[in-house]
């Protein structure tokens, strides 16, 4: 192992350029799409990819000022300093690099490529990317282990090399080489992680290689007899659904990040799609998984709907967060495209009523493909995101005109909230279901508020992720976090978490009242998934806002756990939430994970340190060396 600051770069330009050219390095999504504030002071969404692209959002600015106290003159744009190779010295393993070249694997050591793969999309990571202050402290060894729940800029490093295997066999070969030369591998899918799972550990002394799966992006076969498809791990959700659609099929797995996140990433994080009510979450969709570990390939020898063969080895791979090996191929269930797709929406006098309705729908198991309830704050926020003046509200009012006088009038605009619906299936079924759902809504004081509002809600889904970058430009930090909880705790949990967040903001000296809102995004028989959106304006704050933000999110997570919520419904643990894992699955549970890890990866090649596996693994390695 040797260290040098100037590797000879002969990267595979074609590959890196192709991928990078379209996406932002220090923000969300496509380069051409973003929110801006135009010269006449209006908020606009530029680009041509989404429903609201090119629209002026006339009332959004005043909402931003009202809800977040934004000062348009207080600008905090990203640093545009040019980044050089010197900024990020490389820990180089020459013999590994030589072997990679010999085997003709595509690779790159350019600083842009390395930076892009050094982070996911948590607030802390993005704000590092915006300021360009990642740093590698090479050679400090294992002893300087630090708590990494909060990494100050000087404590975070970036990968040293990117490789792009093209197939399962190439992955196998790379993993073997890595074991031979003792370099670290961090699998990289779409990079949409929100758990700091992709971050490199600052005390890692070995060379860190990002294994980018993006070149493994084929549907290997579609089995239309048994409705299964075999897909390479690097396929993104969007491409997958588009291609399957050409054959008349879909997987129906639609996480909000589906434009960029990959099949391998879903399996590695136990992802959840918006339409799980019909299609299931990733663990329900998976039939077969092929994973390359340091100790060889782990997989089942059949593709059956169910099996009793001891504890399910799939369950170790699902949610392994890149710590056990590289997922290369996944067989997923597919279904024919639905005959009908129909949106809908409901208005409820209060969040409590809405939750009660969702509970009833769950009791009757008459779930639409998707049913989401947003609270009053988000309801008002969504209204502010309308493009032409008052269109949203107007259509809302038109749709319920006949009830307007009798009912809407008695709704408290400070309390009412909206529920969006998506129905899929045969025409008959959809109609029947619609009727049933609207009837149940009626029992809880809800009323239909039209198709257009529902549709709007779902198309906004993809755009909302772009908003954080706008906030960051104007001194606002924001993030979402999620959990799951039993039905009878949902309302209390939401209220208590909001209370706690506000209290912590006060305690930590945040000058402006924060925005904290929630929505119920998934319903189950016994509980639901809740999403929180949290933003605050850090103007006037003395200390680092990201630090403050993380303190508050940690407090919020404590509160969630205290109120019977989980560590995460689908974002995973990563490094961000590892402090709660032992409490969640008991110390014995963590030890079991460690034992499995020890067997599959004795040299700790997959050393991202996720799932609370960092400490004992480094100890483990030390004793072996």
């Amino acid at each position: 192992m040797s260290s040098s600051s100037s590797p000879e770069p002969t990267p595979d330009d074609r590959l890196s350029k192709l991928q990078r050219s379209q996406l932002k390095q220090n923000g969300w999504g496509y380069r051409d799409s973003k929110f801006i504030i135009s010269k006449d002071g209006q908020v606009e969404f530029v680009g041509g990819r989404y429903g609201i692209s090119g629209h002026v959002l006339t009332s959004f600015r005043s909402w931003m000022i009202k809800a977040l106290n934004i000062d348009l003159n207080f600008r905090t744009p990203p640093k545009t300093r040019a980044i050089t190779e010197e900024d990020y010295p490389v820990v180089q393993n020459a013999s590994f690099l030589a072997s990679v070249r010999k085997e003709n694997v595509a690779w790159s050591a350019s600083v842009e490529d390395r930076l892009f793969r050094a982070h996911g999309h948590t607030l802390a990571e993005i704000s590092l990317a915006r300021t360009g202050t990642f740093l590698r402290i090479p050679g400090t060894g294992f002893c300087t282990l630090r708590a990494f729940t909060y990494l100050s800029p000087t404590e975070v490093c970036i990968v040293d090399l990117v490789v792009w295997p093209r197939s399962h066999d190439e992955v196998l070969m790379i993993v073997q080489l890595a074991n031979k030369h003792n370099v670290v591998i961090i699998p990289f899918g779409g990079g949409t992680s929100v758990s700091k799972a992709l971050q490199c550990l600052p005390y890692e002394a070995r060379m860190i290689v990002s294994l980018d799966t993006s070149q493994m992006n084929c549907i290997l076969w579609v089995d239309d007899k048994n409705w299964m498809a075999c897909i390479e791990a690097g396929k993104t959700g969007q491409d997958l659904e588009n291609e399957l659609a050409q054959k008349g099929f879909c997987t129906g797995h639609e996480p909000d990040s589906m434009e960029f996140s990959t099949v391998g990433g879903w399996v590695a994080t136990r992802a959840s799609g918006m339409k799980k009510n019909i299609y299931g979450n990733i663990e329900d969709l998976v039939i077969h998984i092929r994973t390359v570990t340091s100790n060889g390939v782990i997989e089942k020898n059949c593709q059956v709907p169910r099996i009793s063969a001891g504890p399910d080895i799939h369950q170790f791979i699902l949610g392994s967060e890149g710590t056990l090996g590289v997922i290369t191929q996944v067989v997923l269930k597919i279904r024919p495209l639905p005959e009908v797709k129909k949106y809908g929406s409901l208005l409820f006098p209060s969040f409590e009523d809405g939750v009660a309705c969702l509970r009833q729908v769950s009791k009757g198991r008459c779930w639409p493909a998707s049913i989401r309830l947003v609270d009053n704050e988000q309801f008002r926020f969504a209204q502010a995101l309308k493009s032409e003046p008052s269109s949203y509200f107007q259509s809302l009012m038109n749709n319920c005109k006949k009830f307007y006088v009798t009912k809407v009038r008695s709704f408290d605009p400070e309390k009412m909230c909206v529920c969006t619906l998506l129905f899929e299936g045969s025409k008959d079924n959809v109609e029947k279901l619609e009727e049933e759902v609207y009837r149940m809504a009626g029992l809880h004081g809800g009323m239909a508020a039209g198709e257009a509002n529902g549709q709007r809600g779902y198309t906004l889904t993809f755009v909302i992720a772009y908003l954080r970058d706008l906030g960051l430009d104007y001194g606002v930090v924001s993030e979402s976090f999620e959990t799951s909880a039993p039905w009878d705790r949902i309302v209390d949990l939401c209220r208590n978490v909001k209370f706690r967040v506000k209290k912590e903001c006060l305690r930590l000296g945040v000058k402006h009242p924060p925005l904290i809102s929630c929505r119920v995004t998934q319903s189950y028989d016994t509980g639901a998934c809740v999403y929180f959106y949290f933003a605050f304006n850090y103007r006037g704050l003395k200390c680092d806002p990201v630090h403050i933000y993380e303190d508050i999110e940690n407090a919020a997570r404590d509160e969630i756990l205290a109120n019977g919520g989980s560590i995460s419904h689908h974002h995973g643990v990563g490094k961000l939430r590892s402090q709660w894992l032992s409490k969640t699955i008991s110390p014995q549970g963590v030890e079991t994970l460690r034992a499995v890890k020890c067997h599959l990866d004795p040299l700790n090649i997959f050393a991202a340190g996720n799932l609370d596996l960092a400490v004992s693994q480094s100890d483990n390695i030390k004793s072996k060396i």
Partner: protein
Amino acid sequence: MWISSLIDVVLHWSKPYAVDDAASRAQIVDQLLYLLAGLRPDRLLHHLIEVWSSKRAVSMDWTGITTCQRQDLIEELRSVGDFRWTVTTQSSSQNPSTIDSEELKKRVMQSQRISDVIWMLLVRKDEKRSEAELQSEVRRILEEMGHKYSINYIRLMGLILIKTSRRMYEHIWIDLRSVRLLKSLFEEKDVPVILMPTHRSYIDFLLISFVAFHYGLPLPLIASGVDFMGMTGVGEVLRKAGAFFIRRTFADDELYRTVFAAYIYHILHQPQPLEFFVEGTRSRSGKSLYPKFGLLQAAVEVYLAGRVPDIMIVPVGITYERTVEESLFAKELLGLPKPRETTSGLLKASQTVLTDNYGSIWFRCGAPISVRDFMKKRVDRAVHNTSPRNRFKSTVDGSGAVRDLALQVVAQQQDLIEIHDWAVLASVLLNRLRTTGTTSFPVDELVGGCQKLLSALLLISQTKDDRNSDRRFEAKNLIRCTKIHLNILQLDSKQGTLWIQQSHLSDMRTLHLRLAHYRNHIVNLVAPSVLFRLASEKSQVESLNSFEFLKQLFSREFVIPEISHDYTNVSGEIHELFSDMVEPFLVGYAMVLRLLQSDAVSVQTSFASLRELVKSLQGDMKKVLDAGVYCGFEILSSDLISNCVQAVKCLEGISVQNGQFQIDSRIVDRINLQFLSLLPLKIVFQLADMSASSDLHVYASGKI
């Protein structure tokens, strides 16, 4: 009862007439009640004019309030006019009550929790009752428990109260920061507020409502003991004023406990605050009582179960310069049977009560305690996640934390008690009575003593105001005190002598206890430092242990805050003053401990109840005191004896076997020895004298 139905009739009857709004209807009701209350009708006209001439509601001027520190409510009322005050002060917006009392009961009745517990009881083998019977039992409990809050009755109470309080009291001092604090707490909608006042008198029940009413704050729902219900009519009136009733003991009654917990849960979800007395009952001794935990536990559980984001607890100190129940309390403490609370008794008492001057009342709130913050480091709420929410079981951590919380509230209450002149004078008088045996005192000398004690007290007081004040105790303060306590004192201003009233000389025991009641208002301020000093006479190592021991022995007597204070800065002279105040407690405890020893005269070794033991000890102590060596008659207080016995029980000197309380003489001997070794020689000699003069060989020199 008849009053309530009459009002209902009137309300009904008044509807169709010109009375359009609630306020004027309320006026009519009040006028009627005014007549009913038997107040002088000739003044009615006057009041009517007052009302009609100014229909505008009384609105609080908050700007004025922010500048001054305290306000005299009596003075305030004078400027508004009683009638107008009662009628127009509170508007419904100031006093939100979303759930009416019947609805509240219905919700409890229908709650999951109740059906759950019924189901649980039904499957039990030893449960004889059927489902229907259990349900009607729940209904019965709720009927017994439930409040019937009604603003019109509050107005009635207000009117009576304002009349009587004006006659009885010179001042009702309201700490205005407290009012501001309460107002800001009520603005946080999701967070329930619990007011926890000291409990020294029946007046407490009404005072907070009275204050809240005046300042436009939401009126509290008040938890009270069921013994009140025995008083015909009174219970009902209190219900209407927002009181609800809770049995004293129900630990073994699963059904009652659940109904109670569910009721508290629903109350905390009302916009009105909950009010209860953490001491559980009126403190006869005037000193803070060791707290009761049941109600607080139920309230805290609502937070621990995640049903509210937080609860704010406001300790409230109410100080009476002269307690209405003064002589009653003294008698009770001496073991004369407590009269049953009856309406006629109350009315009879009130006739005499209404003619006297009761001086001042001080009302002050302490820093609110956030239950969330308090529990943060102590309890993990997540442990309840793996059982259904209706099956909430408190944990060991939880119960411990509730105990700490209750103690903290009491500790804060102690700091809120006013260091009033009379408490100081009573302390000095008590001391003189005990040491000199005379019953007349030169005023000059008394004033000097009072001034010394007062300045010492102000010096160590926890309240900033007190510490900074330039209050002095002068002759005029003494004169004022005498005026208010004419029942005890008599001033001969020509000779400059203060006399104990003739009528008391024959019953010194009661007199001592009456004075002790007021001394006890402030004894808690000084007790910790005195105990600390006793312990620190010992060597370094031992002193910490000794202090711990004393804290345990006196744990029921003095609530000593957990936060370690610096007691070392008390000078020797001040320590002398303070020791004099605490001395009777030391003597009393030594005496009780001695009597618990196996060779003491009449003590048996096993008792059916602690109360029986206390009674027997009290009898023995009377005999010892009858010998006339020691004049600190207050040690006969059943409160002191029972506190000591309880502490001995905690120290395992008394154990329970087959329902019998057994004295373990070995442990009692040990406690006794350790305690004696810490007492100043002066007291030890005194004890020896006492035993020598009675036929009790108390302190054989070998034992010391």
